[in-house]
């Protein structure tokens, strides 16, 4: 199963990765807040991840690392 790692403190919560994911794996964590004051992204359905790298392709801040 693909493994997603986020550099959460660099996330600006723009949500472009959330829209790019075809499986609905990601969501913006409304209840969390990171060091920079943004709501960061988190994997809510990591089991559904197919490792397509679409999220990382659209991430402007390069915070997503994907391992298969």
């Amino acid at each position, binding site marked *: 199963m693909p493994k997603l790692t986020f550099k959460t403190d660099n996330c600006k919560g723009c949500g472009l990765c959330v829209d790019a994911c075809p499986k609905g794996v990601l969501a913006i964590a409304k209840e969390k807040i990171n060091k920079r004051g943004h709501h960061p992204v988190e994997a809510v359905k990591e089991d559904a991840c197919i490792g397509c790298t679409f999220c990382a392709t659209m991430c*402007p801040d*390069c915070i997503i690392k994907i*391992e298969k």
Partner: protein
Amino acid sequence: MVVFDKPHALADLPMHYCPGCTHGIIHRLVAECLDELGIEGQTIGIAPVGCSVLAYNYFNCDMIEAAHGRAPAIATGVKRADPDNHIVFTYQGDGDLASIGMAETVHAAARNENITVIFVNNAIYGMTGGQMAPTSLPGQVTQTSPYGRDTNHCGFPIKVCEMLSELDGPEYLERVAVNNVKNVKAAKKAIKKAFENQINKKGFSLIEVVSSCPTNWGMTPQKALEWVEEKMIPYYPLGVYKDRTAGIVKGADK
């Protein structure tokens, strides 16, 4: 096995760009190309003035900061000083390249300088607070055109790829976008080709990247990417505008 990670040529720093700004994507694409071609150690980048003025912080290759718009002139000097050992690229926005730096851009293209130009077109002056740029669309609302860009008063946007394709000089001109995954992959391919052209000593390559500015357009990052698709791309059609080696001159291919 790692299938996606930050490229080595991109520094491990938080970027100062606004949330959802596509500058970050374009930085990453350039860094990925430097990694894949194995040229990070011999590359010199020229940073512009504008939002990407701090690009020198984010690339791990050597960087020079140019005066506003003069990046192609500095790139010419750097490249000519040591043409065989250095790869030189400039990273410029539309206020930098298409306005104050127009002369440098056109003449570098006309001379077919062996450099790579990454031109980020977001149709607005981002850093200074959203004023009308030479590339702002007709009717586009900006700080200095609150009723929309009036073409009777302000003229028409400059289409850089179309304009430069009229010159005999440039080797490669392509317009790409970064509004969805497919276009980002195509943009990567175009940027890589631009660097390969330089390595193969073919000459001036310019890649125009149609991008977004959510903050100054007054939109969410998602809406801004939709606006790119609906408004920007119809006005700035994507495609190869000139490829001398392949014999393509003028006319978008899609």
